[in-house]
């Protein structure tokens, strides 16, 4: 594991996030993804039908993943590229480092890639003395700040404009201190000017991939800034780092998935740039890299095939689940403690780093179901979080207090007669104590509730006891 994990201390992370006023301010201003998606969906009456076909495409691909991977690899080779398989993060980093070293690379530019975050590629490159430059504006900002993305499509969503200005003034010291950076356009212009030089001097360009097309051996990226294109076209070597479930059979399939991707993510009909790369520059091409490599990462994904978590491999990383999640909305992405936040992270994190470390996340859900409701791939996220809870329960990983509380409750819940008598007595007693005020400010065992909220007092005898008294018999 090359990426720091703080998921086991999730509750402490939550506490910090809730008391981080800057973060809370930023989160309150990140609302418009929801409205934009809603309006994009409304403009496309066949959206739900597209979701069905998108789901079918991925299910089919996953059922025959071995065949499509072989076909993809063959096509990449035919077009002059190379596919490298990486079992885990360490292997993937070693492959990329090897490629860079063999070519004497000093600097690499990077398009936005969550897989490179997952394997901790920047740290690996820096450790090898190779400068890694993020070229997506959001990624560039968090790289300056020494942070990780807090959202899979909007990595710097937790950062305010003021923060960015301060970061730029700190990082870009050779520019006049008196320059005006009060407008977002000025910040963008400054980043663009600085990155332009980097694009031109980089030896290797590294991008992720939104899709890998088996039919043609192409990798597809979608961006809104065009930085991905410059990253993969200008340097001598283009390296794609992608996980193996990014495969789709045909270009037509990719087009179907593209139709739900941007709408679900940002509410755009299409992202500004959709770029296909197929192998290195061919004779007669005016531009393009001399070499084209794809590093295909497994890192635990093949083990998800055939398991109750296979559906998660349909994910196309649009971020709609986190945009619509009340938990994500309250705490932002860093509190989740690893690479992937929100509902998709709550399912994926235990799959990739183990339930012992990632188990907090699938528990920290109200099961409100809004993530599944908006997921373009119809991934049953709450159901899979529940499966993680089942795995934890089977392995006795759930907290003792939860297990014993559940045990006592279950003992009564499985014995209706005893349950009726005991609950009736208990509710009558609690009613007597709480009836004047109608609620409690504190009660033992439920401090997690009464610390923040009052607890309603019961009305007295239970419904079942009153009903029996009224009807005089059991039905």
């Amino acid at each position: 594991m090359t990426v720091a994990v703080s998921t086991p201390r999730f509750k402490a992370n939550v506490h910090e996030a809730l008391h981080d006023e800057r973060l809370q301010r930023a989160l309150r201003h990140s609302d418009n993804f929801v409205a934009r998606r809603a309006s994009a969906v409304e403009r496309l009456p066949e959206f739900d039908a597209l979701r069905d076909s998108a789901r079918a495409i991925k299910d089919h691909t996953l059922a025959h993943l071995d065949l499509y991977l072989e076909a993809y690899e063959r096509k990449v080779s035919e077009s002059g590229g190379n596919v490298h398989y990486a079992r885990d993060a360490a292997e993937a980093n070693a492959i990329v480092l090897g490629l860079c070293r063999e070519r004497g690379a000093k600097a690499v530019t990077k398009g936005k890639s969550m897989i490179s975050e997952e394997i901790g590629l920047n740290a690996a490159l820096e450790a090898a003395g190779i400068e890694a430059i993020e070229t997506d504006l959001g990624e560039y900002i968090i790289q300056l700040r020494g942070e990780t993305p807090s959202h899979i499509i909007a990595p710097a969503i937790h950062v305010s404009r003021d923060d960015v200005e301060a970061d730029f003034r700190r990082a870009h010291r050779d520019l006049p201190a008196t320059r005006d950076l009060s407008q977002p356009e000025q910040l963008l212009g400054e980043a663009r000017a600085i990155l332009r030089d980097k694009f031109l001097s980089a030896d290797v360009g590294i991008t992720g991939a939104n899709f890998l097309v088996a039919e043609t051996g192409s990798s597809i990226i979608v961006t809104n800034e065009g930085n991905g294109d410059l990253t993969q076209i200008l340097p001598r070597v283009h390296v794609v780092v992608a996980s193996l479930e990014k495969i789709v059979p045909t270009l037509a399939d990719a087009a179907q998935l593209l139709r739900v991707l941007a709408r679900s993510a940002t509410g755009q009909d299409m992202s500004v740039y959709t770029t296909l790369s197929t192998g290195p520059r061919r004779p007669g091409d005016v531009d393009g890299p001399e070499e084209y490599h794809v590093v295909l990462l497994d890192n635990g994904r093949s083990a998800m095939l055939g398991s109750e978590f296979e559906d998660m491999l349909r994910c196309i990383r649009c971020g709609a689940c986190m945009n619509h999640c009340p938990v994500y909305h309250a705490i932002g992405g860093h509190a989740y403690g690893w690479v992937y936040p929100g509902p998709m992270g709550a399912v994926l994190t235990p799959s990739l780093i183990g339930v012992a470390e990632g188990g907090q996340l699938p528990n920290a859900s109200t099961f409100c179901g809004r993530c599944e409701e908006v997921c373009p791939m119809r991934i049953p996220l709450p159901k899979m979080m529940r499966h993680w809870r089942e795995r934890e329960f089977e392995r006795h990983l759930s907290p003792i207090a939860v297990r014993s509380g559940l045990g006592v409750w279950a003992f009564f819940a499985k014995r209706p007669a005893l349950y009726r008598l005991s609950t009736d007595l208990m509710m009558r007693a609690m009613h007597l104590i709480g009836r004047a005020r109608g609620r409690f400010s504190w009660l033992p065992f439920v401090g997690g509730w009464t610390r923040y909220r009052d607890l309603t007092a019961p009305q007295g005898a239970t419904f079942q006891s009153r009903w029996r008294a009224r009807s005089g018999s059991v039905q």
Partner: protein
Amino acid sequence: MNDAVKPPTRVGLFVTCLVDLMRPSVGFAAVKLLEQAGCKVVVPSQTCCGQPAYNSGDRATAKAIARQTIAAFEGCDYVVAPSGSCAGMLAAHYPELFADEPDMAVKANAFAAKCHELVSFLVDRLGVEKVSARYEGAVAYHDSCSGLREMGVKSQPRKLLESVEGLRLVEMKDAEVCCGFGGAFAVKYGELSDAIVSQKSAAVAASGADTLLAGDLGCLMNIAGKMQREGRAVKVRHVAEVLAGLTDDPPIGEGAKGAKP
């Protein structure tokens, strides 16, 4: 949908553990509404739908309770719960629980097919168009998650509330966003739950409503508890109480009339 069933339909009331224990008046409101619509209501001996076990990963206990519940309601034409969450458990999750046991799966599917959330049952199944009740106030309705997303409860309560004399329905912002209850979540992740319910409380307050209604007691206790802790004077009730005109009992979390806190 208006394929009205021929009364007297035998409806088993799955009262839900929270209503059974905390707020029996909601159960009686449900009975009144069902009887007004021509149903014969029975209340088989019951405990809980099993969600606390199911959502804690304890499938074995959830299955034991599900078996018990399915058996208890065997003689009923319909099973109706004044809760979208518990109805969702019965209708959507019992079949899932027994997916790997063919014999029980048949029973669970048949059982699930007759389970309904109260208000949607009244409107969609029984064809109820209006109620005869009176309630003075500006009312906001919170769409509880399971009711909304698992049971399709959205327009039905609003439709019936509009027929309540004296009642003015107002929509609050983010009515479809979770209140942060989530069962054991509210206690296990109290601070996180609190952050979410604080947003809900603010949205209710901003709506100008003097009364908040919903179809799930868990959410209602969460929202009431937060608003009361914050000192906000909004009355919180289960939608069935208002629809049945049974609002003599104090609102959720309020003391008896005349009693000093």
